[in-house]
């Protein structure tokens, strides 16, 4: 469960703007649907996505139930130095997944 896919270029030139794509497996249950017996299905969503670059936060997204199942988020950052990009998704029911990717800046 909770597999995450991250697309970050392995190498970049200093100062280049790189595009980062992230996808994580999650149902994003809205809390507005009803099951077959008519009972409301409890909300279960990812609330927050934070990206850090060598420990400094570069991007964050606050999600609401209107985001699709398996949230897909695309953003960009300036390749400043070689290092690690860390991505963290947190949400309802103590959901928490952290993934990282390394980038080499020439």
């Amino acid at each position, binding site marked *: 469960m909770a597999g995450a896919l991250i697309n970050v270029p392995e190498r970049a030139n200093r100062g280049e703007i790189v595009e980062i794509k992230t996808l994580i497996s999650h149902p994003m249950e809205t809390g*507005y*649907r009803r099951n077959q017996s008519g009972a409301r299905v409890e909300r279960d969503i990812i609330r927050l996505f934070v990206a850090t670059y060598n420990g400094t936060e*570069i991007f*964050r997204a*606050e999600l609401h139930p*209107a985001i*699709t199942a398996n949230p897909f988020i*695309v*953003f960009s950052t300036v390749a400043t130095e070689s290092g690690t990009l860390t991505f963290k998704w947190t949400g309802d029911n103590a959901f928490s997944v952290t993934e990282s990717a390394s980038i080499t800046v020439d």
Partner: protein
Amino acid sequence: MAEHPSRREFLRVAGGVAAGLGLGAVITVTPARATPAAMQEAIRKVVGASKVSPGRVKLEMPPLSENGNTVPLTVSVESPMTAADYVKAIHVFTELNPQPDVVSFRLGPRAGRARVATRIRLATTQTVVAVSELSDGSFWSDTVAVVVTLAACLEDA
């Protein structure tokens, strides 16, 4: 004739009452749904007393979507993205989803370019609004109308 209302008048009054009852029934049966006023309120909560001007923001969405469960969305903002002049946040709102807030992105000069993308759910044919907050404290927005054939939220994903 004077004490009896005419047939036409009776029908008019009865119709009005029925319509009133019908409307009441619709309101109680329909699941919670935001209204354009609720969206304005949600936007107001984010921007405070500031003025939101149209322009500088570009919200790209397909004008017609067959499946409301997944609608691609891209927001880009005209900004040099320097330390002195950058986009602080991009918020997305919908008019008729169960709640008006969709997503808030927070970025800064390190983004290099103010362009973000995601996929959202749309409960019905409606208007989507993107509001961008700039480092100088100004707010800019763009609005797109999207036609949805299959609604999200009520169907199984």
